[in-house]
């Protein structure tokens, strides 16, 4: 079955894409670029770099901009998925893990458009997913932190077993999700098993405000693996 992947460039959509590639043919990535940093549906830091990630994976990217207003951004998502139909997709893959809000809306859109919907990370154990990200060979970094006690020093760090241990400790002490599913962290994937090239970040800036911060990638390029 030919599928398109809703792609934010973070670890969850990359892992969902990786799982989907084991069973189906992925023919395109679909990104919605939100101008609103507080987007209800769409991961935002470095979203414009999905184009570079798509090139690294050798896949076409369908991208749409949205103002990021609560339900209006869903219309932009519908437009993006409609456009992705030109690639012959029969279904959509998402990286939703536990968000009923997100999955409900995407399921409704797919149902209306006559497309199958796949959520291969749905309800999965979040620690196990983080371990799979690490063991599958993804090179993902923290590109945003949005919850105490996650600080400036976390920005730009690679997701490895040491970081996972810290997230587990934070999960026990502060109740934050170990994989950041609650929006506590955002991530950016520089390399992975389906990447033909890896991404080298040549310039980035940490922007911190209150208890949240973004690792804004300003310069990045593809390099040979």
């Amino acid at each position, binding site marked *: 079955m030919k599928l398109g992947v809703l792609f934010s460039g973070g670890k969850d959509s990359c892992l969902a894409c990786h799982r989907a590639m084991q069973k189906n043919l992925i023919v395109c990535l679909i990104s919605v670029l939100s101008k609103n940093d507080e987007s209800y549906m769409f991961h935002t830091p470095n979203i414009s770099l999905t184009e570079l990630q798509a090139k690294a994976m050798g896949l076409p990217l369908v991208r749409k901009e949205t103002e990021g207003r609560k339900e209006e951004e869903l219309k932009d998502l519908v437009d993006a998925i409609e456009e992705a139909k030109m690639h012959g997709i029969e279904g959509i893959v998402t990286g939703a893990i536990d968000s*009923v809000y997100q999955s409900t809306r995407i399921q409704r859109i797919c149902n209306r458009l006559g497309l199958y919907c*796949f959520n291969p990370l749905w*309800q999965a154990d979040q620690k196990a997913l983080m371990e799979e990200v690490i063991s599958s060979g993804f090179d993902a970094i923290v590109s945003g932190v949005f919850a105490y006690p996650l600080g400036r020093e976390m920005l730009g760090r690679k997701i490895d077993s040491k970081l996972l241990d810290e997230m587990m400790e934070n999960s026990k002490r502060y109740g934050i999700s170990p994989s950041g599913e609650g929006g506590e962290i955002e991530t950016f994937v520089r390399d992975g098993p389906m990447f033909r090239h890896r991404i080298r970040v040549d310039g980035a800036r940490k922007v911190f405000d209150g208890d949240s911060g973004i690792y804004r990638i300003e310069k990045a390029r593809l390099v040979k693996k």
Partner: protein
Amino acid sequence: MLIDVCMEKDSLWKHEFVDPVQRAAPGSRVVHMSDVTEQDIGEADSIIICGTALMDNEYMKHWNDFGWLKRTDVPVLGICAGAHIISKIFGGSICMSNEIGMVEIRVTERNDLFRGTFHAYELHNSAASLPRGFIALAESDKCLQAFRHASKDIYGVLFHPEVRNTGTIARFLEKKKKDGPGGI
């Protein structure tokens, strides 16, 4: 034993519709509907028939593979597509009814799996009618949400208990432990 009714064996949907049920029923083994044998049914201490994706209606071409439901004494829980299958096998029918997302469920008959009014995750374009010999247990504004065989531990739930309501699965499994030797 969990029965996977997704379109294909070991499909991408297994992650979404079977694995979460398996996490709520640790140690259970998964068999795809195309591989279920009379021996599997005979050896199981309890059976959960899992759901599948919204537009995946492949299981509706395989009603005949579930004739064992009429003969078994094993506790069975049918989730969404599983509830459709149970209804159909016992003479009920399937009708169009769409619910996607969290929906309020009202319990209409006291039972061992859930009580009161609660919210549950729904993902269906079809609902099942109450077959003869079954008791309605719960409803939503749109349709019948749960039913039970009048004399056997055969349950159908239209909602997905593996999302936000894993206690329903745990209580179904307790029932099995009370009545049987254990192991699934």
